[in-house]
């Protein structure tokens, strides 16, 4: 199974809330954009915490 975190850059407010709750240190807030830099385990915690709903975990077979 391949996992993917989708970052909707049009929605993202680049606030870093997701970065602080990510248990894998996989997200990075770089100046004015959010980037998936490490390995995502698809736990979905970042997607829950986001104030705007800019993150979505895709589960693909």
């Amino acid at each position, binding site marked *: 199974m391949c996992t993917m975190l989708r970052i909707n850059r049009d929605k993202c*407010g*680049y*606030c*870093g*809330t*997701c*970065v*602080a*709750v*990510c*248990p894998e*240190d996989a997200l*990075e*807030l*770089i*100046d*004015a954009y959010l980037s998936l830099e490490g390995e995502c385990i698809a736990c979905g*915690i970042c997607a*829950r*915490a*986001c*104030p*705007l*709903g800019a993150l979505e975990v895709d589960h693909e077979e």
Partner: protein
Amino acid sequence: MKSNYDILIIGGGPAGALAAKTAAEAGNSVCLIEKRSAIGTPVRCAEGIGKELLKEYVRPDPRWISADIESARIIAPNGTAICLDQARAGNEVGYVLDRKVFDRELVWQAAEAGADVIVKTRATEPIMENGAVRGAKVLSVGTPAEIRSEVVIAADGTEAQFARRAGLNTVVPLREMMSCAQYVMTDIDIEPGCTDFYLGNEVAPEGYLWIFPKGDRTANVGIGITGKMSRDGARAKDYLDRFVAKNFPDGKTIEMIVGGVPVCRPLACTVADGLMVAGDAARVVDPITGGGIGNAMYTGRLAAQVASRCIEAGNCSKEALMPYDLEWRASKMGAGIERNYKVKEYFVTLDDAKLNTLAESIASISFSEFSVLALIKELIKRNPKMLLELKALKDTLS
């Protein structure tokens, strides 16, 4: 870019700025790096601070004070309002700041004291030697570089990645992360000297909604809910939009702000070999109010004071830096965080009916002090059963 300093500070918010100013004034060579391209923006804050607290660090200046606050209202789910005002309380209340200007002022003061300031420069990882932090690898406007130092003060805010990459656990549990959204609104009917806090599971589950004035018809209208209560269709922005549509349908939003406020306990330890952590990165936020500016300035300044002594003594080990951790924990701030953490853990369990009952029990009282502690003491006096549920608090309240 110089590559060697006594003290390297990661982050140009109030914690980093106070650390840089204090360290430079003590005669250290200091470098403050900020990953954003400007100090003070984007704002991630409701901008409220107590007057007394602020004055300990900087002289109030109308250039960065948006509003002078004289009263506050806490509004329960059924509309019952607890009112606190300066005239009755007899002490000063607070300010709503303009953080864009305020943060610049603090960093300007640090620069004037002799600190180097470098923007659009991100610490990617600590330089580690024999388990000790010895500086940071950075990307400065995209160019890799190394900045070495005797001590690094990590003041990198809610993300807190620097300390994490040096081996400290800075992860905030979802249930203890306040997911926040705020509009700076204008052309709205508000009371310019009064801050409002709305409670209730319909309005702001496990959090609160605030109106912090920034002028006669302008205010920060924002909300924080716990990550646990945040989901599709019920996110901070959804709750805020509903409140605004109902209460300020004709208001104009001139800025949208989002952010996360950690309301967990502070880090288990805020020092390591060659490393100190201050401000939101250390999780020294008031767990009830979510306020963090004053605590950031306090811990930033204290970290720099202790670091200066250690550099002079030639020992920046974890053990040598430990007085910083011990001192803030034993301080009024440390004790207040621990107390308010327990109060917060109790309050998030309350349903609307219980919140209404508690609010009604103290709605008619004239408060002689303007604080969370005064409110809690009065609540317990009127609701003796509450103390049984709040056993853990008994000692801290006496």
